């Protein structure tokens, strides 16, 4: 007996011992288990909600319009006018755009314009587009709520947002007048028929962007085959370096190539903040849990001081006691993680259809987010939560475990 205890217990026996110790006081263990499960659920669920919101914001914000990477005239950002236009992509750029890192690209005319119906006028951004290219960079045809999208660069029709249609008090099929200026500062205006109406996540977009056929707009503005910008999408918006480098190499003289991070500073700062938030949130929840965890282990040890002393007197090594306490903690954490993960994945799956936030839609729009929130479960976040709980949990348990292994047998046995 003495020699077996002395030579450290075999793992299955230790395991059995730890498991039984855990359930000696089932109430305490259950409460702690519940707390760990709720904590883990909170970590994963809340993270998925925030991720969902920011992912949606970024994909809505960059995919259809700016693209991951954009080329424009070097002065265009400062002065977005027709004078600062680009030549249509040349041979070298076209071959770079054929690269596999490019998922889609499009070139468009983008000018400020005034649009007037019989009832009202509004300042808008007029986009002269090639519909096939727009679809390639992410324009979603299911967002068309009436009529059709443009059928080619020469389409003479106009596609406007739902909110703008309302503001102008006009209808599908009606004519509106678009006024802008050509490169010689002459006012250029033309009547267009509204052939389609689109919806967007943000009302602000619906009011701002008006789509026309690219060649048609180019002829209205007397700009030949020039364009204002070329938008390019890749395969992962977080990793645009390769895409950026390959486009930069082939960029036409006098142009500027920028990633979305610089074009949409707000969205980028949201993304960076969210990455930080996930870790801070997981750690805050863990710290809140850790006090209870240490307490539970300390109480469990305190009750067993005599027993621990006896085991030591019989020859069990202090390290074995340390392992035993750590094993108890590991079992507790693993069980809590299991329940917490199941709860989190279950609740996220049950909310797949999205959470309706239309009661605060205008407020969400201020954040740049839509009014339906889709939780997004990221494997990376799931892993972070689990690793943090296990690793930091065991580190926290080291303190009570170490103390337990340091009792001197005689003192411990005589303690009441």
């Amino acid at each position: 007996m003495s020699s077996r205890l002395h030579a450290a217990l075999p793992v299955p026996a230790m395991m059995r011992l730890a498991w039984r110790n855990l359930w000696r006081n089932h109430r305490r263990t259950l409460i702690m288990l519940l707390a760990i499960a709720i904590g883990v659920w909170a970590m994963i669920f809340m993270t998925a909600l925030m991720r969902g919101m920011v992912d949606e914001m970024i994909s809505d914000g960059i995919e259809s319009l700016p693209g991951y990477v954009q080329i424009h005239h070097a002065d265009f950002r400062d002065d977005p006018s027709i004078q600062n236009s680009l030549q249509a992509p040349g041979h070298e750029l076209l071959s770079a755009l054929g690269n596999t890192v490019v998922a889609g690209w499009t070139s468009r005319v983008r000018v400020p314009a005034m649009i007037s119906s019989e009832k009202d006028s509004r300042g808008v951004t007029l986009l002269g587009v090639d519909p096939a290219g727009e679809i390639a960079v992410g324009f979603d045809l299911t967002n068309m709520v009436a009529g059709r999208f443009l059928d080619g660069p020469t389409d003479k029709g106009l596609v406007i947002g739902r909110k703008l249609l309302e503001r102008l008090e006009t209808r599908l099929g009606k004519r509106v007048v678009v006024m802008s200026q050509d490169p010689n500062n002459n006012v250029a205006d033309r009547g267009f028929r509204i052939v389609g109406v689109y919806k967007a996540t943000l009302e602000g977009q619906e009011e701002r962007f008006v789509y026309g056929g690219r060649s048609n707009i180019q002829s209205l503005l007397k700009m030949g085959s020039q364009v204002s910008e070329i938008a390019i999408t890749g395969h992962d918006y977080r990793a645009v370096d390769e895409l950026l480098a390959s486009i930069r190499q082939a960029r036409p003289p006098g142009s500027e190539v920028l990633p979305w991070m610089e074009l949409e500073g707000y969205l980028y700062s949201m993304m960076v903040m969210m990455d930080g938030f996930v870790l801070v949130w997981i750690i805050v929840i863990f710290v809140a849990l850790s006090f209870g965890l240490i307490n539970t282990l300390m109480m469990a040890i305190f009750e067993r001081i005599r027993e621990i002393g006896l085991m030591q007197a019989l020859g069990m090594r202090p390290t074995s006691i340390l392992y035993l306490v750590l094993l108890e903690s590991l079992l507790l954490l693993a069980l809590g993680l299991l329940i917490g993960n199941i709860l989190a994945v279950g609740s996220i799956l049950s909310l797949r259809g999205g959470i309706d936030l239309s009661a605060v839609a205008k407020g969400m729009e201020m954040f740049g987010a839509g009014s339906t929130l889709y939780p997004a479960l990221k494997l990376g976040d799931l892993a972070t939560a689990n690793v943090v709980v296990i690793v930091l949990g065991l580190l926290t348990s080291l303190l009570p475990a170490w103390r337990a292994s340091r009792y001197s047998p005689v003192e411990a046995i005589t303690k009441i």
Partner: protein
Amino acid sequence: MILSLRMAWRNLWRHKRRTWLTALAMIFSNVLLVFMISLQFGSYDMMINNTLQAFSGHIQVQHPGYNDNPKLRQSIPAVVPLAVELRSTLPGAHIAARGAAFALVSSDQRSLGIQIIGVEPDHEPWVSTLPGLVREGRFLKDSLAAEIVIGRVLARNLKVSVGDELTLLGSGRDGSFAAGVVTVTGIFDSGSGDLDRSLAEVPLRYFQETFAMRDHGHSVVVAVDEIDTVPTAFAAVSHEIQDKPDLTALDWNQLQPGLKQAIQADMSSAWFMYGLLIILVAFSVLNTQLMSVLERTREFGVITALGVKPRKLASLVILETALMALLGLVIGVAIGWMVAAYLNTVGFHYPGMEQMAEKFNLPDRVYPSVTFFSMILGPGVVFLFSLLAAVYPSLRLFRLQPVEAMRAV
């Protein structure tokens, strides 16, 4: 009472380490809550003030329907006399009349569609911060002059500076063609991209003439000094115009529905997180108190055998919890208050905040609001939940069988 207080206090320190650990959990969450809540309140205040003071004011009188659908035709007659009348009703508030229209503005080199606001040069500086933010040139002076004040981004896009001329093209209230030539007298820089890009102000009477408005305007703006006084001012304005069916009063919440909703959305997600944190603390308390009751089974058995009612023991356990929670509250609030008060003087900033701040009309440093309410709200809820967590352990005392309990190990 004093006796049970002393007993509860002593009981608490029988397990020094356990009590401190539980109190630490409370202190941790209390400090966090005080910091977060005071930061939230501070930025909400700034968001509201900056947004409202920049342009929209706290209350506006408009034509019914104009707010949802701002059309030139939905105007209010005799707008300047109405402003004068309201000034006598609300002597403490600042009041100015405005008109608004969309027009194409052209310089020599550029044309852009923007919003033109007709303002009373004498009164506008009191209801909006834009006149005070004129960085080049000066604000409008004469109510009939053909002058215009524009934002910095707009000036850059139009490639104009002070002294240059701009042409306005649009349509008048009667559907006629509206046109005018104005001189840029000032350029403002508000820091808000939207205002700086798409807004221009001209004198009200010049506006009325150019856009065939006769004596009409679109809104009378009321700005008060303290946001708390909005409801009283709103009631007074509503009372004043109640017999005029073609007028309606709107408060800032109706004028800027996004603002309150953004705050609500932020508030509810924050409270969801705080709630989870508080629940975890409550579990900690539940575990500690349950253990402390269970380990005293024998002692409690003896006491009940001596004739002490279970109710008395239960309230002792609640009292112990209250003392522990109070300890967590006092220390937590003290540390949280120090952090908040420090940041209240130097401001809080984190990298990447500028972009977000600009979106919400915030400066790039936020100052936490240090009030009794913002300090005590979070810790108060923690305190309450800790007491709730002690209910189950203390209820167990009512089921105590003295004889059995005395035999317990």
